[in-house]
């Protein structure tokens, strides 16, 4: 009886998620002889916007993939809320992933099913909602990104910006508490970039979600992030608010922050 009570308490404690949304502890990752992340540690406070910036090939996307367990560190630990993602497998890892949304750089929509089915996919897999409710929710999510009329279209029929918005709708389908966004402005015109930024900002302010963003786009990082880290050669070169990084004691960091669209 006592053990059951303890287990219930532990479960409740796990669900309380009092800690940071994401925590890296001395994460090192190499591919072959190339070390992409070298003893990287940082914390993302719950409910905040957090940008990872840096030049191409500095390990930004690799860091993002560690958060959802798509990549496992060679050394170190990665936590999402109170779960050590880097040590989880199977059903336990799936449980954590259900609470995290991921917008991929090229949206990664499933191209064999319609846009609406893409958004309905997580709902169909992880909820017991009836078909009508699934469709209604998928439409709601598409409406939030201005794509409710595209429900029955195939992903190939959408423009790059629309695909990205549809990817965002899919990432939001299960109302995640943590949203990971990989290069949201890559390949998009400034107007569409602003639209995506506005959607993410609404999600953070109104939905209370934590957003971890990988970007080359400094104006986007300024709009969305409370904290920024800059990766350089696999290590954290700078960490702080966007304003603090403007005056950081490192010319590379200052030059990056001055750029309108670095990388």
């Amino acid at each position, binding site marked *: 009886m006592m053990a059951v009570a303890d287990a219930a308490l532990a479960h409740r404690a796990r669900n309380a998620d009092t800690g940071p949304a994401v925590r890296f502890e001395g994460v090192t990752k190499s591919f072959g002889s190339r070390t992409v992340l070298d003893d990287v540690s940082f914390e993302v406070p719950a409910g905040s916007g957090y940008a990872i910036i840096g030049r191409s090939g500095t390990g930004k996307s690799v860091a993002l993939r560690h958060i*959802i367990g*798509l990549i496992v560190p060679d050394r170190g630990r990665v936590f999402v809320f109170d779960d050590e993602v880097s040590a989880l497998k199977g059903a336990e890892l799936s449980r954590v*992933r259900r609470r995290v949304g*991921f917008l991929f*750089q090229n949206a990664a*929509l*499933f191209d064999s099913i319609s846009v609406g089915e893409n958004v309905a*996919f*997580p709902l169909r897999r992880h909820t017991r909602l009836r078909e009508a409710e699934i469709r209604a929710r998928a439409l709601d999510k598409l409406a939030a990104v201005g794509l409710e009329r595209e429900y029955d279209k195939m992903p190939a029929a959408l423009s790059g910006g629309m695909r990205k918005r549809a990817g965002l709708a899919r990432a939001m389908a299960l109302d995640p508490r943590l949203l990971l966004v990989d290069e949201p402005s890559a390949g998009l015109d400034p107007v569409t970039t602003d639209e995506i930024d506005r959607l993410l900002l609404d999600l953070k302010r109104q939905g209370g979600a934590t957003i971890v963003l990988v970007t080359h786009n400094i104006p986007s990082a300024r709009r969305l992030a409370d904290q920024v880290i800059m990766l350089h050669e696999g290590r954290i070169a700078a960490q702080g608010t966007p304003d603090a990084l403007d005056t950081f004691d490192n010319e590379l960091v200052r030059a990056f922050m001055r750029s309108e669209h670095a990388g």
Partner: protein
Amino acid sequence: MPPYELRETSRQLYELGLRSAPLIAVSGIAVGVVLSMHTRASLERFGAESMIPAGLALALVRETGPLTAGLLLSGRIGAGIGAELGAMRVTEQIDALEATAVDAFRYLVVTRVAACVIALPILTTVMNFAGMFGGYLAENAATGMSLRVYFDRSFSVVDMTDYVPATVKTMVFGFIIATISAFLGFTTESGTEGVGRASTRAVVLSSILIIVTNVVLVRLIFFLFPQAAG
């Protein structure tokens, strides 16, 4: 039913199985016509033309049908799975599945393997009948033989020990095609060039493996069913 992926398996049965049926049926008819013409040329010399339907049926059911279906499907299905999964890998769709808390291996690979193992014996049966029908067309053109007489003569010599082991054998072919091509697609690297390479290697490797495995399986069938060698 996510644990068993019945919905996706059904979709794959349609994509890989039903949509392969026209290719198999048309090829079967053509193979039947050609086999019939060759057999006629040989048997005519011995005055044994009446044996054509039976000889053709035995050849089709025991070996030509299963092997031809296996090779044709290694082309259509092997290339399809290799290219589809390869493209999904390089466009991050497989990562997106994992990120959506879906077991991508079970969802993409197991379903395709199951669909192929189920579809191959059915498509082989279609091939057998299409081949016999092609044989009938050739015989009808040469001698005016009726459909009923042709099929009566065909089935007079074929029994279950001819049909069952040879057709069950194609389940192994289906397993080979799906696992090889799914593995190559799933592990694709190097962008679109890698997709092309995965697709080509899927066809080549599964075709070779089918031919080699067929030798072993025929030997096994002869061992387990000695009457099938008669």
